[in-house]
């Protein structure tokens, strides 16, 4: 009888594997973890978005201000950026979140039109013409949003458009970092 128990072994292995793989099913393989979590934001110094008022540049030194903030990569040519933009506006207007914008591979006049149409609640906007700063942040698709703590360290990264549940999570994290 004991010998026959061996035949149950494949079933057990299958059950274990099934549970393990089942857990993976809900995950989105398109969402990569950031390599920068808990590391200082990469060094960069970007010129301001041309023609925007106020025309402040955006550099690493503007991230470590003692207050946690968001860095949002966006572009006028990016559809999901339009989708998430109202959420960014709400975070800035209703919850006083500081949102820094990095305009990725865009034309300034089109970026300005995008902001006129959808609202401009960014604190500063840097122009990342060749996408180099995005690569330093490990960005692999627009939009992406980073939570930066008061010391200028990356604490969270959300690839893809912000949705209400993610915005809640981001708000909670920002509050915890205060």
């Amino acid at each position: 009888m004991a010998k026959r128990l061996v035949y149950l072994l494949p079933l057990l292995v299958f059950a274990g594997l099934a549970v393990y793989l089942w857990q993976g099913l809900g995950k989105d393989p398109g969402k990569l973890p950031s390599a920068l979590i808990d590391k200082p934001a990469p060094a960069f110094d970007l010129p301001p978005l041309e023609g925007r008022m106020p025309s402040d540049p955006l550099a690493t030194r503007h991230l470590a201000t003692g207050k946690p903030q968001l860095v949002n990569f966006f572009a006028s040519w990016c559809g999901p950026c339009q989708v998430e933009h109202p959420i960014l506006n709400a975070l800035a207007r209703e919850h006083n979140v500081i949102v820094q914008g990095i305009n990725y591979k865009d034309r300034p006049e089109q970026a300005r039109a995008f902001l006129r149409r959808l609202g401009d609640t960014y604190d500063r906007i840097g122009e990342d013409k060749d996408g180099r700063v995005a690569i330093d942040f490990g960005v692999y698709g627009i939009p992406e949003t980073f939570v930066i703590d008061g010391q200028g360290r990356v604490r969270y990264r959300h690839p893809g458009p912000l949705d209400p549940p993610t915005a809640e999570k981001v708000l909670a994290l920002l509050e915890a970092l205060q």
Partner: protein
Amino acid sequence: MRLLLLCALALLLALPAAHAISPSEMLDDPALEHRARELGKDLRCPKCQNQSLDDSEAGIARDLRRIVRERLVAGDTDQEVKAYLVARYGEFVLLEPPMRKTTWILWFGPAAIALIGAIVVWRIARRGRRQLAEGPDDPFDDDDDDDDDTGPVRR
């Protein structure tokens, strides 16, 4: 036969077309370009995930190919180029995971499973030979002396 060979040849010729590198991206120095190609094969496009940097048409892959070449021209070793990208995109960009305690199951798991399978097959085969020599068991003998309890049908 000749037609078959021609077809095979045509397929072979089609292979290099999988590269997405445009001539304008290439380096003038053939040795450096060769290293860039070797690196491009080992690095993953973070956007398209199952394509290497060299195979991908994605804008980010093109940007990363340019950075690989920039780093090589600047004098980086292959390892340094990989480290540069890993620092930004994580180990995910390496198509071959690094050998480490936590990745042993990735590296040796398939070989281990194949080995277990081979042992099982070998044991079954050996038993089959022994039974051939001894003659089949009595199918109604239920004393569990042997593992092979598939019943009378197969014998």
